[in-house]
């Protein structure tokens, strides 16, 4: 193994601290005994206990989860359809326009998406609440699913669908039993992406929410304006923990699959 030179080591440390120092500080201070965020008063988990008593934060967390789950699920379905259209139908009339319109929300500033959705809801006289936040989140996370699914389909062997048709399977059943299972990992990662995007969205949710539909990021933001409390640190730590667990789990599953596959292929090669 190659040894790190001193220069490499220092730049590595600088880089990582740039990325993770703020988060580490946040986590450490969530275990602070003192009520003052910047003064260390010894280790304690009392803020976590206090968190469990805070109905406002618990409600907000529940709203966030609901919105994230529903919007990610709907976006996964719609995004899959869009991704399939883009990769399957070749060069139809208006394809460039269509793909441009699908990808636009990825580069559009959140403020503009939020504002335009707000204007639309107002114009249509829709009562703002959980439903409108969900619709807004579907709108902007759909394109991420479409991109993931489309890139998976680009390496998809179309002849396996033809083989299914050839063996007497109807087109609808072919999609359900052949295409969908093969692209399912892509749909799942699209769903996860949409879920996380919805989970941490503040701007669009602020525009489209109504009374009684405060999401967790909104709650945290509004509390921070009154001053950062160790309680907020605790919530944030939990969020970070959840996301980190998800990422680790996903990469563990991926790695195991890759390893299994490699072993299988080695076995197959020896059989020849």
């Amino acid at each position, binding site marked *: 193994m190659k040894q790190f030179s001193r220069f490499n080591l220092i730049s590595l440390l600088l880089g990582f601290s740039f990325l993770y120092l703020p988060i580490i500080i946040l986590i450490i201070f969530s275990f602070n005994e003192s009520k003052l965020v910047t003064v260390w008063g010894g280790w304690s988990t009392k803020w976590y206990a206090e968190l469990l008593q805070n109905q406002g934060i618990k409600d907000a967390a529940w709203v966030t989860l609901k919105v994230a789950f529903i919007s990610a699920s709907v976006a996964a379905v719609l995004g899959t359809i869009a991704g399939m259209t883009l990769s399957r139908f070749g060069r139809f009339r208006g394809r460039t326009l269509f793909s441009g319109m699908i990808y636009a929300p990825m580069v559009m500033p959140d403020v503009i998406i939020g504002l335009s959705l707000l204007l639309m809801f107002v114009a249509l006289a829709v009562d703002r609440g959980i439903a409108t936040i969900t619709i807004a989140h579907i709108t902007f996370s759909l394109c991420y699913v479409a991109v993931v699914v489309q890139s998976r389909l680009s390496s998809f062997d179309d002849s396996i669908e*033809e083989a299914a048709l050839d*063996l007497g399977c109807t087109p609808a059943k072919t999609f359900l039993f052949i295409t969908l299972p093969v692209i399912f990992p892509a749909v799942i990662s699209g769903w996860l992406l949409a879920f996380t995007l919805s989970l941490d969205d503040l701007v669009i949710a602020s525009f489209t929410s109504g009374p009684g539909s405060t999401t967790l990021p909104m709650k945290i933001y509004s509390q921070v304006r009154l001053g950062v409390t160790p309680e907020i640190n605790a919530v944030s730590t939990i969020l970070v923990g959840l996301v980190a667990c998800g990422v680790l789990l996903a990469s563990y599953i991926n790695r195991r699959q890759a390893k299994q596959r490699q072993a299988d292929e080695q076995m*197959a090669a020896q059989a020849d």
Partner: protein
Amino acid sequence: MHENKEFYPWLDAKQKPYIQIERVTKKFGDFVAIDNLSLDIYRNEFFALLGPSGCGKTTLLRMLAGFEKPTEGRILLDGEDVSSVPPHQRLVNMMFQSYALFPHMTVEKNIGFGLKQDKVPAAQIKKRVDDMLELVQLGQFARRKPHQLSGGQRQRVALARSLIKQPKLLLLDEPLGALDKKLREQTQFELMNLQEELGITFMIVTHDQEEAMTVSSRIGLMINGDLEQVATPSELYETPKSRFVAEFIGDVNLLEGRYDGSGEFGLTMVCKESDSAIQSTQRLDVAHGTTIWAAIRPEKLEISKQRPEGTPNVLKGKVWDIGYGGSFSTYHVHLPNGKAMTAVRANRERSLEKSITWEDDVYLSWAPKSAVILTD
């Protein structure tokens, strides 16, 4: 071992063709992939479609499977017009070039998939899958997924999957393309045996002429969306219809000349490579001076240091190169005007000393019946 030797249904006027392709044209936009093609195939035939890439052979196969619809003309299967029947309702199965195995299903499930679509009872599916696994010798791999198999095993799973419904016609799209040479040759014979055993009509698409000659009862040679010649492998090799066919199938020496009357044997041809007229037993009904070609296969050319007796067709040349191929040697001979000729001689005697070597002056000769005279 091969009953194909006495199998010539296309010569029997009473035989009804099993698959009839009637004046089929297929256009993709302005591009004509298949151009007014007609072809009859008989029950139990092993028919090979051969041709350079882009000649339309795969398009024709896909039309038979139902993935493409003919722009004009129609396709009849066992007397029934299937031109607009979708693929999942046709009694035709296809083995794909990429094998197209379902990656998320085991070997067993892959093979049984077709029967499951037909709502065959599970117990029966199990039995037929087991039989099929035995036929292709994959019994112990039933529970594996496709990526756990070698190339040759995948190929056999794909074959089993396309055979299990006992289709009226099995289409094979370059089925052996992904295998190495040794495995390919072995599999060719397996395919032939299987086809005889099951009595299913096979149609194979390939660009490998050796493969087509080995496995098939008849070959259709395609060029530019139409059939150039349909014949048995030996007919195609020994009596090609045109220079394209002669050059596509095997190696050939072509001499261009002019028709010069019927002569002593059948016809004579004058050409600039030979001092005396070339004689052939073939007869032609063309005008004097018409451009014709003599096609001579390399193994039908005699090569000798002394001027040979007994044949009027002799060319003089110099050995340019010798390719030693083990069982045979290939001699590249240059004629005085620079034209290159190829002669192949079997190495019957085990001798390391060659009687003919580089730079030798040699005579190339052939019997009047050995060359094919072509007008196209």
